[in-house]
């Protein structure tokens, strides 16, 4: 197992190097530059423009800038935001817990509804349940997130007034960040009602962010279950007279879980991508919104280092998913 992990980590390094090239190049390929955007309609004199480009080091050849960036990375310096002047690492770790909290809640919703829905659809194949569940999943998968989020806000926050519109907690509560996770910090604060307020703020954004992964998980569970339910050992289990619940829940489900877990692992990437829109709609102060703002401002250090850190997170999660295969199915061993 240790050998497998070391091998995977060794493989991560060239991938990370590739990501630095892509993220560094991507933001520079975009037309416009941070100095022009900073000046706006007011404009900037050519000599001052030149001076600022020199000050930021953007007048040098791009390969020289890249090598300098790599050198800084190797020294643990991810750079400072051109806009806020703060270190990128500080900003990332300030905002990351909000995205993780939202993603975990969304994933919990996606898994706890998606897997049962897939099982029901597979075990009642072709029935009304199968068709309506899979139809709903297709609708969920096809739904534009922005529209879906606004619709939920208008119905549940506007008309019914069941949930707050946006944010992480009612602003009338105020306590310092301890972990950055609002559910935990609200409990630690000891303020009455703070936890409930934080929880109620999570409901709509979690549902919105969960929608696409939920649909994917439900469909994947269904197809994996259908495959497994046709296997000989399932027929044998049925022939032995086991209850349908035991056949599906114990014999079939465990074997069907491998592809489902893969999909769950991959959906971490989907969640981070979905977070960009979800966080924008719900004024959720996470890394998705941070990246969008930085791209539009051509904040080069934030885009290149932010993307790198997000990529690391996705790769680590996928490594963890690969490691769990061995626990689910003993035939898969990473010796």
């Amino acid at each position, binding site marked *: 197992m240790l050998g497998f992990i070391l091998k995977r980590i060794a493989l991560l390094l060239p991938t990370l190097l590739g990501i630095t090239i892509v993220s560094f190049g991507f933001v520079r390929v975009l037309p416009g530059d941070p100095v022009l955007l900073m000046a706006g309609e007011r404009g900037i004199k050519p000599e001052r423009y030149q001076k600022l480009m020199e000050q930021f080091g953007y007048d040098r050849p791009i390969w020289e800038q890249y090598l300098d960036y790599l050198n800084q990375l190797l020294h643990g310096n991810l750079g400072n935001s051109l806009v806020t*002047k703060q270190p990128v690492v500080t900003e990332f770790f300030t905002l990351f817990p909000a995205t993780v909290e939202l993603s975990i809640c969304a994933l919990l919703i996606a898994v706890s509804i998606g897997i049962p829905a897939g099982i029901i659809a597979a075990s009642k194949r072709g029935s009304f349940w199968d068709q309506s569940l899979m139809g709903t999943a297709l609708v969920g998968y096809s739904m534009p997130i922005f529209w879906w989020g606004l619709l939920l806000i208008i119905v549940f926050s506007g008309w019914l007034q069941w949930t707050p519109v946006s944010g992480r907690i009612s602003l009338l509560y105020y306590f310092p960040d301890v972990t950055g996770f609002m559910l935990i910090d609200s409990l630690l604060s000891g303020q009455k009602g703070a936890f409930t307020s934080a929880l109620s703020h999570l409901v709509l954004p979690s549902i919105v962010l969960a929608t696409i992964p939920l649909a994917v998980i439900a469909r994947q569970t269904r197809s994996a279950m259908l495959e497994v339910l046709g296997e000989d050992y399932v027929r044998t289990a049925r022939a032995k007279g086991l209850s349908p619940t035991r056949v599906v829940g114990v014999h079939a489900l465990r074997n069907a879980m491998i592809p489902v877990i893969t999909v769950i692992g991959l959906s971490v990437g989907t969640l981070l991508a979905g977070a960009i829109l979800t966080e924008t709609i719900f004024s959720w102060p996470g890394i998705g919104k941070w990246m969008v*703002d930085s791209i539009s401002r051509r904040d080069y250090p934030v885009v290149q280092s932010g993307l790198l850190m997000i990529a690391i997170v996705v790769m680590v999660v996928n490594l963890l998913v690969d490691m769990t295969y061995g626990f689910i199915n003993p035939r898969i061993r990473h010796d």
Partner: protein
Amino acid sequence: MKRSLLASLGLVAMLMATSVHAKTLIYCSEGSPEGFDPALYTAGTTFDASSKTIYSRLAEFENGTTNVIPGMAESWSSSADGLEYTFKLRPGVKFHTTDYFTPTRDMNADDIIFSFDRQMNETNPYFQYVDGAAWEYFNGMDMPSLIKKIVKVDDMTVKFVLNKPESPTVANLAMDFASIVSKEYADQLAVSGNMGDLNQKPIGTGPFQFVAYQKDAVIRYKANPSFFAGKPAIDDLIFAITTDNSVRIQKLKANECQVAPYPNPADIAELMEDPNLNVVSAEGLNVGYLAYNTKVAPFDNVNVRKALNKAINKQAILDAVFNGAGVAATNPIPPTMWSYNKSIKDDSYDPAASKKMLQDAGVTDLKMKIWAMPVARPYNPNARRMAELIQADFAAVGVTAEVTSYEWGEYLKLSKAEDRDGAVLLGWTGDNGDPDNFLAVLLSCSAVGGSNRAQWCNDEFDSLTNKAKQSSDAAERTALYEEAQVVFKREAPWATIAHSVVFMPMSTKVTGYKMDPLGGHRFEGVDIAE
């Protein structure tokens, strides 16, 4: 059931918390501040969160107007040659006392000199106190070439010595970049090696003092009990950062905030009917225009420019692009600005006359480009749509126009070129309420190849605006600017399109809010009913 339980628990919690914080105003701001040292930045969102709340300046814009009134300076005088401005400072002005700074003295001349010196003197330790400090507004307003030196006459008197006379000087010193920071605080931070805190944990003398900022989520302030103009009526001010226009309005309706700027134009009618909301409006201090390149034929011919101006149906643009939230522009300065010349008549919409004028000028089969900005701005919410409408108007008089666009930074750069092909849609929002800030910045000979997108250099116009800039007589300046507008309209370097109307919906519980013609959001005079 579960959801309603959650909601009711949340409501109970909110009510309990409300009783603790009696006078809290929540403002749904449209974006995150870049930092809290306004001199480092140029964005209005940052100024709302820093200069408008935390800081004060030598002179201030009277809330709701562009009149310049005493701020930290209780009076000022200028020398006869207009080269020296002497400010008498207000005694007893206190910097904020917070959990991270306790001032040991009142504001004095050292603070004033430090606040400017750090922006212009490369040897000042704060000149580069954060990476990439560019002091862009200070430089953009050409202050380094204007200010020769700033002299401390005594503890409570400072003198600005200029290189050339400039009438808008006091108005310039009321702008956000001229906010006064505490030298004592800066010195303490320098000693402790935390200079960056000047931009993260601000100390000012303004109506509100900084409490905390949770990035991209919320900024908290409390009223400054020692504010020299009197403690604000509200105790706590909270900025709830909400970037989406529709969501901001939903929050306002749900009373999650009490003031929310920049509603979608399509939502305004509905908001006006809401009995719990009050929608106030004001004309923005801006202008949207179409600038011809007057250096390139046939646009070097005033009759061609006039003819094209007559082809544009501004009412259709106001209806389709501004959704009614705009007024047609006649002059290059907005009607709310002093010296606006009301006697000038706009070029009337008359396609037949336009066609004839083009024929008379010998222009047939004209092909041209219309540049459309890729971003929404206050003076032009949808440039692409505006360009398409103008394209159709031009087609009706036999002119074939092609709509073109670039990324915003590129657009700003390429549109400055003196040999640019085509007419450019752009606009301007005033900085200091002075006509010079529009007329000289956008139309003077020295701005050709820069912010003068029409590349228009007219000696008569230039001499009028230069004379006005050097005069300190308000009546004389008014007359000169009025005349300059006549020259502008006669020569038509632009098609003046529109001035936007800014709407601000707020809870009916909010009183005392004044629309800032300079586009800021100020809360020092605001109260909220309990």
